[in-house]
């Protein structure tokens, strides 16, 4: 009987581990070595990041989502409409945000009779570039359907930068990784709001050929 009780307790204690396993990447093909390897790489980074009191970003290109996470918990999820990338194979570990779009903050004037309007999501930009270290650029832009003019302008800037890169005489042998995300204007503003200086980013890359 005592043996039974001990075994039942052991069984019960193993249940949370199994629950956690199913939470991480639902739909992951456990028979696909490349997919598991990538998921494992991301989990290794997440375990490091989630052990600290901070929020971080998981950019899951497989499920096309941007997730704000803390302690391994998904706090908020945003959808990516479409994406493209360059040199993603060079990504290793996690990245830290070093430059993000500036926000026009309103200054309180004590002598003014009317209170200043606070900032809100609507004040956040919809197309912008995020820079990370180790080197990684992420361009966030609205979808063509939603904001055709902004989309054309953002694409134009991307093409111009690519052209300058290819003309550059000091062009390095390996180019820095670059990612372009098309998201809805609301999601772009939501992401811009949630960013904090030094925020960590982990990217889960697809392993199948696109």
């Amino acid at each position: 009987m005592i043996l039974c009780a001990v075994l039942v307790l052991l069984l019960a204690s193993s249940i949370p581990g199994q629950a956690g396993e199913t939470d991480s990447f639902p739909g992951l093909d456990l028979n696909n070595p490349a997919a598991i390897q990538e998921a494992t790489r991301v989990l290794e980074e997440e375990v490091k990041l989630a052990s600290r009191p901070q929020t971080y970003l998981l950019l899951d290109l497989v499920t096309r989502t941007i997730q704000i996470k803390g302690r391994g918990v998904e706090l908020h999820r945003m959808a990516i409409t479409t994406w493209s990338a360059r040199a993603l194979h060079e990504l290793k570990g996690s990245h830290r945000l070093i430059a993000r779009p500036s926000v026009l903050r309103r200054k309180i004037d004590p002598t003014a009779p009317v209170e200043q309007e606070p900032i809100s999501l609507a004040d956040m930009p919809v197309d912008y570039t995020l820079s990370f270290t180790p080197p990684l650029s992420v361009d966030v832009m609205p979808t063509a359907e939603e904001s055709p003019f902004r989309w054309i302008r953002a694409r134009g800037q991307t093409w111009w930068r690519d052209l300058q890169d290819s003309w550059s005489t000091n062009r390095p042998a390996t180019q820095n990784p670059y990612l372009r995300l098309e998201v809805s204007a609301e999601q772009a503003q939501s992401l811009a709001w949630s960013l904090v200086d030094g925020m960590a980013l982990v990217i889960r890359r697809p392993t199948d050929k696109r």
Partner: protein
Amino acid sequence: MMAKTSVSFSTLILAGLLVTAVPQSSHTAFPVSDTFSSPTPDEGQDRRLHSLQAKYRSLATQLSKLKPHQPYILVDTARNHLYVKRQDEIVLDAIASTGSGTILDKPGEGHDQWIFDTPRGEFFVQSKLTNPAWVKPDWAFIEEGLEVPKNPTDRVEQGVLGEYALGFGKGYFIHGTLYTRMLGKNVTHGCIRLNDGDLKSVYQFARVGTPIIIF
């Protein structure tokens, strides 16, 4: 009668354990035998896959253990909502007011400023207060164009923070408000405001040490 029932119950459990244990023991037997013979390409791939699966499961379990296992408070500053969560379950969803993001120049020669943001990241409930009084900081006078009082008692204001307040460090609190029509907007100086009912629920639920995650 009771003894018979318990024996059959324990037999069932043992049988169940044996059934679940068989695949695990067969997995652990593989590598031992493989060390004495060179594996075929298929066996090598299988072993690599099993090893990857085991590592993935182990990391997923590690990550799961880092999640808050006690109830916690989650604050969405973009949408001005405060949630009380128990694992994946939302126990309370309250409309809140968080930081306005505005700036105010500090008096003097320098270019120092106050920025009225709600801090982001992970915090903990550090104090629980009933009928809190507001000890007005310098900015509360300066933004109204008033002189900062020299007498500390002139800073104390009663009845503006509601019946309860939960401190989470550096002068930031979750507290009540007289301006309930502003709930759902970014209007505060960094604190998190709730209506009286939601504030009471959060106060009753939270303990000193309850995590607060703000994004």
